[in-house]
């Protein structure tokens, strides 16, 4: 929208305006809005633990046994006692070796590439009705329990900031992190692009009874 000259001009103008009113003089080259983040503020919000190397994992620890107790209390209602998943809630364990199948079962054990990601996700987003309310120890314990359900760590495993980054997840090497697209090379043909005899309907949504209504009140249909 603005070129760099216009932007510096804009910045100068804003700074002139700020100089006239703001009590705190901005450093040269800056707007000076907002306040410096305090260590206390950072401690409360800087919650991320990095997936591949665990940087950001806090102090604390948890055992598989403790995890089974917290899980029964906090998680099993949706995820099932052994991570099998209730209803349409995610299955957390099993599915090993199914990723090439017609119906793959991606779970923590069969799909997730990094163990510290599990701690980070439970800590920030679970349990769903009360996210980010568990202690670091309980999150470590749950992480240990779910890894154990997937036979990735032994019964005596203790999860902490040192042990989690060392856990090798079974599917770790199956990910590529650079986007290979475009991977289709369609051509912009305009006429006689196909033999009309080859145009066949392979599938239709007609009669499948999966479509909620799109008029009137919201539909509540559930699978047969």
């Amino acid at each position, binding site marked *: 929208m603005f070129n760099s000259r216009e932007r510096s001009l804009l910045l100068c103008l804003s700074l002139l305006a700020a100089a006239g009113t703001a009590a705190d003089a901005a450093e040269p080259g800056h707007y000076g809005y907002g306040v410096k983040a305090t260590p206390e503020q950072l401690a409360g919000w800087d919650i991320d633990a990095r997936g591949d190397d665990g940087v950001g994992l806090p102090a604390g620890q948890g055992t598989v046994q403790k995890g089974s107790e917290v899980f029964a209390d906090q998680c099993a209602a949706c995820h099932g006692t052994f991570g099998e998943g209730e209803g349409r809630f995610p299955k957390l364990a099993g599915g090993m070796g199914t990723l090439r199948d017609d119906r793959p079962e991606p779970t923590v054990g069969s799909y997730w590439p990094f163990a510290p990601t599990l701690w980070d996700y439970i800590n920030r987003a679970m349990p769903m009705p009360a996210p980010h309310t568990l202690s670091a120890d309980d999150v470590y314990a749950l992480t240990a329990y779910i890894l154990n359900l997937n036979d990735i760590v032994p019964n005596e495993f203790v999860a902490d900031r040192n042990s989690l980054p060392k856990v090798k997840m079974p599917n770790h090497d199956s990910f590529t992190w650079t986007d290979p697209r475009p991977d289709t090379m369609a051509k912009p043909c305009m006429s006689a692009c196909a033999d009309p005899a080859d*145009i066949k309907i392979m599938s239709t949504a007609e009669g499948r009874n999966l479509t909620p209504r799109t008029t009137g009140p919201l539909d509540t249909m559930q699978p047969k």
Partner: protein
Amino acid sequence: MRGNVRPPPWRNMPVVSRLAGTRSPLLGRRSFLGLGAALTGSFALGATRGNAEPAPSSPPADAPWSQSIGAGVVDRPYGKPADTEAGVIRRNVPWLTAGTESSVSFSPLQDLHGSITPNGLFFERHHAGRPDVDPAQHRLMIHGLVERPLVLSMKDIMRFPSVSRIHFIECPANGGMEWRAAQLNSLQFNHGMISCAEWTGVRLSTLLEEVGIKKEVQWVLVEGADGAHMNRSLPLAKCLDDCLVVYAQNGEALRPEQGYPLRLLVPGWEGNVSIKWLRRIKLGDRPWYSREETSKYTDLMPDGTSRGFTWLIDAKSVITFPCPEKPLDGAGLYEIRGLAWSGNGRVKQVDVSVDGGVNWQSAQLHEPVLTKALTKFTLPWRWDGRPALLESRVIDQTGYVQPTISQLRQQRGSNSVYHNNSIQTWQIKPDGSVFDVQLA
């Protein structure tokens, strides 16, 4: 003026004298509106049958709303659609997710016109429900590998130089239920996880320059204030290129469903990276590999490998009329209408086929044709009443051509969930009904 009190002009008017069988000299406004709605309803039904039966409020009759005074200004201080549009709403697929909190709703594309999505109809994707955030307490923290970690209030953010840009947001799972076969007979449910708005806010680059980017920074973590603390990693280059931190959509404050009071907007990339209820930005040297970029939003290939960090929305288009929700009403001249978009820039060309992709004709693109925004296209079509297979195909400014579902499956199988940007085929039957089909 205040002293000149006159009786309200409608006091003595025979408002509804021409309503069939009604001789009541006065009808309250509520009753009138009720009748009006009923009449409009029957009119809408009658309309599909042409002018066969005279409607009580169509010519030659003078309608009741033409013989009465309407509601005054501020009757509805915040405007809303006509009562008869009550069915034009976001809808969900109840069987798709365990609950509605981590779920999606779809925009009713079949009832939308033009390229801007009304704020109340913008599709939703929440990962832990819609939080109701108090803007007075909301803060944006920017920290990590920076010179000056900052905490900004909404007031602070709105003081920065502002920009307004029109961009689409699309969930990469849009069309995700159709990888294996045609399943849902609906434009809304197969394509409704795309919407487009004018966004106003501050460039992310402005904020990052304000805190001072340390030289080792390569990646940026963005995180929401919702219960999911939804977080994604973004390359610094994209953040400095065209990302915005926005507080307004289509001229008013963001809707809560779209991240009120503050969200990130990452133009042309999958919707979930445009973090809603944005509260934290952290600069770092490596990606974070969060759950939402490892377990989810990665694409499983037939050989068991997975693609991560597939952010780009490839070019896509769809015919929005006719569609399963809006069938044809007998042979004759129609305007085929649709939308096209690309995460890689502008739409260059849209072609339409009525024979399942054997022959194509270029459609007219309607201004404005903007980068990473919805573009409207139309093509006049005289339907002869025979079966037809309608398709649209977009080519974007990079020359990329929208693929068929078969071409996509050849590369990615049918379990990759995300990024289905294939050509949509609508089957037209002789009675004018329209079905979602997939071709060989």
